[in-house]
């Protein structure tokens, strides 16, 4: 037992050390963001400067952390020696101490500010070693980077433990006796109140009272909080509270409730009359009550929106303008002219979606008012090969089947046999010519599903022999001897959880339990880059639809935006209270959506790094996201086996699709957006009428203003088909350019 505890101490310590450099890396990189994004993505000149700036401070931080560790363990002599050798001033250690102990828990939370903050002050922070505690640029650094002890001490106020039950049941009685219209709203208070009271009891070592309190009232809580309650129930000692992430989340982020003014007044009056300070304090300190004017909401309205770890999203959080429109497509002449010769070398060769044919180019849609400026995010220029691909795409698009409720797509199911339950991720290329699978045995396998076999580029020596002037040079560089249907990529040291092809089919991304994201070349079938930064399992990764950029999210609760030619992230999106489980790019590449185990979905602006939307309503960790092709809507699937639909522009939930009986692992809109396909652990693929789901939408001003949703239970009407596979969970779906649906999963005997 002692050994385990020792290990735990180490763990905490190491965590501090680890997070520190990575955090700085992110902040540091942000300093360069402006430059990066403004220059052409192709150039990598700015990386050098980052490196030189980041190197020494990182070392210093590590040293400080080591020193701190030594001191903690009373190894004073070693401390002295190390400090002398490193040439650190004596006081730096003290200063550093306070900072790093807090960052272990709050590093993630803090980086929102870092991302959006003043870059120069960040730089100064990491370069000047003596003043490492320079406050984070924006306000409230202390609030967002709380020390564990500080957090917990908020509970130290002593109430009379046996009275807790009395308080709680008093409030319960009151809420049960109020008018029906207010009851549902006020009932929202129960859960956060319950949790905080329980934690207070535990913190003050009233174990038996806490247990009794829990047993008495845990049954009253909404069933969708069950998971959290389970965690809570296992926590019965003050020592446990240290290092319990769930608890910290609960404390550090205020639980958000939306209550109408009337109901709030009612509650306030009641509590003040009764002199019920205990509860009033909790409400004031730990809850954020978002008061709105107007009718109180109904029970079903509240249930639809609640369920996340920290209550609903604040209304202001969803007020920011989102440019959800699509980018204007570049016009491509059918006969290719030989421009863009300079973009020959292999960096960033993404392409744009939805090109218009020259004949259709004069279409009325000049510029969507909701679309972001074309250059809002610098996107790589198109290369010849991309243009060729676009032409192929347009040709295919003309043969596309127009789907609808009457015309359902055919589904082709790719079953991975003999995967022994080890298949963890699948992706198809956009043109459906390749399929890649990530496996629990750390391998990535790429299959060609067309007769065209996979070939490697010849070795350097052989390449020298090739006539570079010949017309078919691209054909000649390939080594026929290596042709095969399957290529296996080795490199990860843990299960591969996320996988994504680049739009031009030259690269493949994979993210793994080992904390890295790897970029593989599909020309040489070797690993090109290992992107380190997450340190913890990386659950998902995806290329931008225009290539070059990609997003990853993992257990460290942050999503990171990378560019393929930078080994450090361009942006760190932080704000989720639990693992970022899935990440998706908006079709216009200006936004990303992330789903999380905290049961919220956030949409982030890539340019500013701000969170522009928070969607709550799922009752379990989110495992799949899909943007509609027009960029207006978002669909999400979670372990609660439901699919929810969101209007990005208004920031509203607009639909709920019920029917699956297990986690929804994959979602995909058809190419024209008429059909939403969902695949689940329950071995079924379901098709939903997306057109109808979005048309039925009533967006009156009131709804838009208050964010109240009226959901019809019309899942049955929207369901167009359900197809069961024999024993194969559906973990990936893909519509081909002609609207054939491809599904994939591992056979599970």
């Amino acid at each position, binding site marked *: 037992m002692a050994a385990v505890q020792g290990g735990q101490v180490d763990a905490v310590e*190491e965590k501090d050390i680890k997070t520190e450099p990575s955090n700085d890396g992110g902040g540091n990189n942000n300093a360069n963001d402006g430059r990066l994004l403004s220059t052409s993505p192709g150039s990598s000149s700015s990386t050098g400067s980052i490196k030189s700036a980041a190197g020494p401070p990182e070392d210093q931080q590590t040293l400080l952390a080591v020193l701190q560790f030594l001191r903690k363990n009373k190894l004073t002599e070693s401390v002295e020696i190390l400090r002398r050798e490193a040439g650190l001033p004596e006081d730096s250690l003290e200063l550093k101490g306070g900072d790093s102990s807090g960052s272990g828990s709050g590093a993630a939370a803090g980086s929102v500010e870092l991302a959006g903050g003043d870059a120069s002050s960040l730089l100064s922070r990491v370069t000047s070693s003596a003043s490492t505690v320079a406050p984070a640029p924006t306000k409230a650094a202390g609030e967002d980077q709380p020390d564990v002890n500080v957090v917990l001490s908020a509970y130290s106020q002593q109430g009379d433990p046996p009275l807790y039950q009395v308080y709680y049941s008093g409030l319960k009685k009151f809420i049960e006796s109020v008018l029906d219209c207010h009851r549902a709203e006020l009932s929202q208070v129960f859960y956060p109140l319950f949790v905080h009271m329980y934690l207070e009891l535990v913190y003050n070592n009233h174990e038996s009272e806490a247990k009794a309190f829990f047993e008495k009232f845990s049954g009253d809580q909404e069933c969708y909080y069950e998971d959290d309650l389970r965690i809570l129930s296992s926590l019965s000692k003050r020592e446990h509270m240290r290092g319990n992430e769930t608890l910290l989340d609960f404390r550090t982020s205020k639980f958000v409730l939306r209550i109408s003014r009337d109901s709030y007044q009612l509650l306030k009056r009641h509590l003040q009359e009764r002199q019920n300070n205990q509860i009033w304090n909790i409400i004031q300190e730990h809850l954020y009550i978002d008061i709105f004017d107007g009718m109180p909401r109904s029970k079903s309205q509240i249930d639809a929106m609640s369920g996340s770890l920290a209550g609903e999203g604040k209304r202001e959080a969803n007020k920011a303008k989102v440019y959800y429109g699509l980018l204007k497509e570049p016009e491509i002449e059918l006969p290719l002219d030989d421009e863009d010769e300079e973009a020959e070398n292999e960096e960033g060769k993404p392409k744009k979606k939805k090109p218009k044919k020259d004949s259709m180019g004069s279409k009325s849609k000049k510029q969507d008012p909701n679309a972001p400026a074309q250059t809002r995010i610098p996107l790589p220029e198109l290369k010849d090969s991309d243009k060729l691909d676009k032409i192929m795409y347009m040709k295919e698009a003309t043969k596309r089947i127009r789907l609808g409720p009457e015309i359902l797509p055919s*589904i082709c199911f790719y079953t991975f*046999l003999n995967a*022994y339950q080890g298949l963890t991720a699948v992706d198809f290329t956009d043109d459906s010519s390749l399929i890649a699978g990530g496996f629990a045995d750390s391998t990535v396998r790429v299959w060609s599903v067309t007769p065209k076999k996979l070939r490697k580029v010849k070795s350097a020596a052989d390449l020298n022999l090739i006539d570079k002037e010949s017309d078919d040079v691209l054909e000649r560089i390939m080594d026929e001897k290596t042709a095969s249907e399957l290529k296996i990529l080795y490199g990860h040291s843990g299960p591969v959880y996320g996988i994504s092809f680049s739009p031009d089919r030259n690269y493949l991304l994979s993210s793994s339990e080992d904390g890295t994201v790897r970029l593989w070349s599909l020309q040489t079938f070797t690993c090109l880059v290992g992107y380190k930064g997450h340190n913890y399992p990386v659950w998902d990764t995806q290329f931008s639809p225009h290539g070059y950029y990609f997003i990853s999210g993992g257990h460290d609760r942050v999503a990171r935006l990378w560019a393929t030619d930078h080994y450090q992230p361009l942006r760190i999106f932080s704000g989720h209270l639990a693992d970022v489980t899935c990440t998706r790019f908006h079709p216009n590449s200006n936004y990303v959506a992330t789903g999380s185990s905290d049961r919220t979905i956030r949409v982030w602006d890539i340019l500013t790094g701000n969170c522009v939307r928070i969607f709550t309503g799922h009752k379990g960790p989110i495992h799949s996201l899909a943007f509609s092709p027009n960029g207006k809507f978002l669909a999400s699937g979670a372990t609660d086996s439901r699919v929810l639909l969101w209007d990005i522009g208004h920031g509203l939930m607009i639909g709920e699709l019920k029917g699956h009986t297990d986690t929804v692992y994959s979602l995909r809109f058809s190419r024209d957006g008429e059909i939403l396909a969902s695949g689940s652990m329950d071995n079924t693929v379901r098709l939903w009428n997306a057109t109808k789901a979005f048309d039925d939408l009533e967006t009156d001003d009131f709804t838009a203003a208050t964010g109240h949703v009226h959901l019809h239970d019309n899942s049955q009407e929207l369901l167009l088909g359900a197809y069961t*596979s024999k024993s194969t969970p559906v973990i990936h779906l893909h519509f081909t350019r002609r609207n054939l649906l491809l599904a994939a999963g591992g056979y599970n005997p």
Partner: protein
Amino acid sequence: MAEERRPKQCTVTVPTESMKAMAESVGVGQLQEESCAALSEEVSYRIKEIAQDALKFMHHGKRRKLTTSDIDNALKLKNVEPLYGFQTQEFIPFRFASGGGRELHFYEEKEVDLSDIINTPLPRVPLDVSLKAHWLSIEGVQPSIPENPPPAPKEQQKVESTEPLKVVKPGQEEEGTIHGKGMTAADSKGKDKGLIRLKPRSTHELSVEQQLYYKEITEACVGSCEAKRAEALQSIATDPGLYQMLPRFSTFISEGVRVNVVQNNLALLIYLMRMVKALMDNPTLYLEKYLHELIPAVVTCIVSKQLCLRPDVDNHWALRDFAARLMAQSCKTFSTTTNNIQSRITKTFTKSWLDDKTQWTTRYGCIAGLAELGPDVIKTLILPRLTVEGARIKSVMEGPVVSNIDKIGADHVQSLLLKHCASVIAKIRPQPDSVEQYRMDYGYLGPMLCSHVMKARTQAALQAQQVNRTTLTITQPRPTLTVSQSGPRTPSIIKVPSSLTLMSPRPGTPSQPSPPATKYIVMTTSAGSSSSQQVITLNSSQSPSPVTSTVPSAMSTLQPLVKLEPGGGSGLTGTRPMQKYIVVSLPSSASSSLEAKSSVLPTSISSNPLEAVMKLDRSESPGASTQSPH
């Protein structure tokens, strides 16, 4: 529901006794009660914490089963060294022991003899991951192909045939969109049709494709090309979409038998019986509704006076054996208290057997039919009549020569009786076996029985010994996937539903001149009470019929094991090398998933050798030259 569970969650902790036991195991002798309590709470909390993290990995691994690697990964998250050496694919049950007021749960770790591992041939390398595409839906309609689940699941067919009024027919709505298993289908239909529960008139229209398929299959089944027939039978046995065509097949078989019995066309009768077998083997079909046609056909093939043109040379006995086995199988599957199939069949057989005027052929069929019904039937119905039957055989064998046909018939009846009775007698009769005693009890057949019984006993002892020696468990790393998924279907592969594939070292198709004799010993204890071993010997050149004997098992606890035993076996020609497989299925309590499969195991294992042997019989018997052209 959640309310009921939660209080429990709150209180579940590792008992303090466990803490003490663990402390002792690491050398800490005296642990205070309070420290134990404190430790147990801490340990419980940490275990819960790790389990929660491990769940995360399970979810991202897209699995429903938590594995040891998930735990390892969760430990890694916490910067704790993972537990090494706890890798297992399968569930390992805890064993329980108590004594000295202590109760312990532990994993049983068996001693393994290394030399055995070194000397055994390596297990097959697990198959590599492969990709297979199929149509899940074509323009909104799910095609009936083996890759898709059957449109009408077997349970539904069963309910339909046993309780017709309760069922709402599937596939009636033409959209065919909602084929969801269970809940969704039931929900949506319950909504529409919940009011009136009338049995809808079922239409038996076959689509053009189905008609073509039916034509192809029936032609192939009774045609002359053996390879085609094998494929057709394979299709019948595995295709999930045959439900609609079942009535046609059933009529085809019954009419076919009726005609061909009259014409004494042995070959066609065999083909038709093999069709019945294939239909029965199809896991997606429930034949109850068609038994009224199939059972008469099968019984005809068992007891008919004459089945072939030249009874003296043609091997119609094998057909009778085969049909008898089919009969026994359908009794086992379909007999209920309402239809009483088994007792009615038993009565039929007994009646004609008791009749003195019954011909030897029919007599043989009756005995075979009864014997296949199991040791209990043999004990109560056949053993008491051994003396009478022995006298009758004696009169034919030793008396004046009546006709050659009678003599052959009596000879076959005799060997049949010996074969079936020996194993049963070996079980019920105490040792020692004295020839005199046997002669007194069983008359003419006594001495022969005695030697057979002794042989059965030595064999049983041998097997028990082998099994008890429990040397090596060849567990393939992941024995859960089948080859049935991919690759061509070779007839030499014996397919077991639980996806274990046994293959003889050389793919010895029956037509090969001298393949090595292969012996499969299949043990099963699925029923729990009657544990028996079935030895199927496949010797493609020597024995005309498979030696299938059921011998008592001497083991009390069965461990799952597949045993490969090289070397010469008993009672077989010693010149050829022989490979022996012993497949022992798990006891039913071990794991629910295995249980379901293990109960099917013996039948399906024995089925294929049988077919192989039947083919072989025909090619050997002189009269069969017309039937198999190759």
